[in-house]
């Protein structure tokens, strides 16, 4: 019996070795399969991201930007954080914000100009919000660097002659671009700008490099705190914005009023149709219309030109975040109609990461 036991033991040992080898092979195959499915899912999510952006732009054109982004029947229907099924995948955290009120760093800065003052006030408000002082930051030096980086020549800036055009001492060393910014994050390569110590959020919340040079506040999209910050930035600048400081309180009151559904500030008529907007009617009713300049009225708009669309896609355990910067163009609004609808769109940036 003992000898038969030995034969059994040997057979079992061989079977064990075979099983181990088989298991190893299965592991390799399982890994291969997971790798393959991950690549496939990534590809599908990228395609889906593009489809969602295309769908949103189409929705803005058909239904209107405000109707989709802020109305009760639009994206407001989706509860925050919820993953909405989208075929085999899901979508969550859709956020669409207007960037029109942010300061465009493509501006060419001149001493004592409105743009220079607004830039200075923006920096002051950033530091005030976090209750820390800036250490040795000279806004003129930053404006000089911004001008130098973008102007086409190799001479020091004519308005703010700080520093040289080359930055070989920076790490990594770089040459100035001699062309306007393409992407906001480019400003981070400027040593003078980096010294401001802004976080990514502060940078994105206050500055842009795409869209129109002028800042406009889309009162239908702006949150009350954004309205207050905007009015702060643009008051006390002198001509042609001499009235804003005095009218700050009533303007904030008018612009912050909510519609009957309790959403963000909403005016039924856009400001592009002069003499017809609820905003102007409110100003008129309060006797303020004659006290505000045309340039000041131009700061307020009823439509968004530059919008940032963000959302997250989910498929199984994988997620992809999408960030798109879109500039809209609008047709002239017909009298008596509501907000004009976006007729064209240009994608400035699209990141799927």
């Amino acid at each position: 019996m003992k000898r038969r036991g030995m034969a059994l033991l040997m057979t079992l040992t061989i079977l064990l070795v075979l099983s181990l080898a088989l298991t190893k092979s299965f592991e390799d195959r399982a890994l291969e399969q997971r790798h393959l499915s991950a690549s496939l899912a990534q590809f599908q999510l990228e395609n889906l991201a593009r489809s969602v952006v295309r769908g949103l732009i189409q929705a803005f054109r058909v239904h209107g930007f405000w109707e989709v982004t802020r109305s009760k029947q639009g994206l407001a229907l989706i509860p925050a954080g919820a993953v909405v099924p989208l075929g085999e995948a899901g979508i969550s955290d859709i956020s669409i914000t207007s960037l029109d009120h942010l300061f465009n760093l493509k501006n060419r800065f001149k001493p004592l100009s409105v743009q220079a003052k607004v830039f200075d006030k923006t920096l002051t408000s950033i530091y005030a919000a976090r209750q820390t002082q800036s250490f040795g930051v000279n806004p003129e030096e930053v404006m000089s660097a911004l001008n130098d980086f973008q102007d086409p020549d190799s001479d020091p800036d004519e308005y703010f002659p700080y520093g040289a055009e080359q930055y070989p001492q920076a790490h990594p060393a770089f040459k100035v671009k001699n062309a306007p910014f393409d992407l906001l994050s480019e400003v981070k390569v400027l040593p003078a700008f980096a010294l401001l110590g802004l976080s990514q959020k502060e940078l994105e919340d206050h500055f842009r490099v795409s869209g129109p040079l002028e800042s406009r506040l889309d009162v239908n999209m702006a949150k009350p705190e954004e309205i207050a910050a905007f009015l702060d930035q643009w008051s006390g600048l002198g001509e042609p914005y001499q009235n804003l400081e005095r009218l700050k309180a009533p303007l904030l009151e008018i612009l912050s009023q909510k519609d009957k559904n309790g959403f963000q500030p909403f005016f039924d008529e856009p400001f592009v149709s002069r003499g017809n907007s609820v905003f102007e009617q409110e100003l008129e009713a309060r006797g303020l219309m004659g006290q505000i300049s045309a340039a000041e009225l131009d700061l307020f708009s009823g439509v968004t030109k530059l919008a940032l669309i963000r959302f997250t896609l989910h498929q199984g355990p994988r997620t992809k975040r999408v960030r798109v910067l879109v500039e809209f163009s609008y047709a002239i609004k017909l009298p008596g109609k509501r907000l004009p609808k976006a007729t064209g769109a240009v994608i400035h940036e699209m990141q799927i990461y």
Partner: protein
Amino acid sequence: MRRGGFTLIELLISLTLFGAVTALLLGGYFQFQGQSSRMSKTIHLRQELRNLESLIRADLTEAVYLENYAKGAEGEIRPSGILAMDLMEGGFNRDQLHLQVHSRGQFFTGFKLAYNPELFEVSYYFETNPQTGLGFYRREAYFIDGPLDEGGDAIVHQLSKRLTQMNLTFFDDQNQPQKDWPGKGGLPLGVEVELTLEGEDGTSQTSHFVINLRPAMGPGVRF
């Protein structure tokens, strides 16, 4: 009195049977092990190929054509987006690819993370070194440092010693295949990438994939 035990014949038959079964089992085992080893090599080749594929795919997907950068100063036109050269070496396709990528640098260490400019110059190319032989390299550089396909402060990694071919085909606005891409006039509609990896035992694996860079969507697209 007869003592218990096996006769010589029984022992011989048992040993012969045991030997035959063991030979069969061992033969099967070695055959299986050989197959397993071949499969394992193939899988490792495929995995290396797929890792290369995902890195190239990630960079190509994030490629960005910088209109303002391309315009440059005083009429000068600078290559931007994707710059690729169709090159052959000893009968092998060894194309070069240079691109501007709008994403966080994969190996960026220059500044604190908050100052990562999310804009890099990336190159893929083959180089033969007398000591180490043929290698496939990836270069990542701070983008504003001059021409798209040249030096500056760069981090270079050898990605593979076994990649023997990279063949790129670009599709222009008319969807016509092009072997080179000049870095002018925007990104191509799509790019077809063919990678060939050769193992030490002579087995080779080829990966072939197409990426739609602007399938009617992406930066610069107008509606």
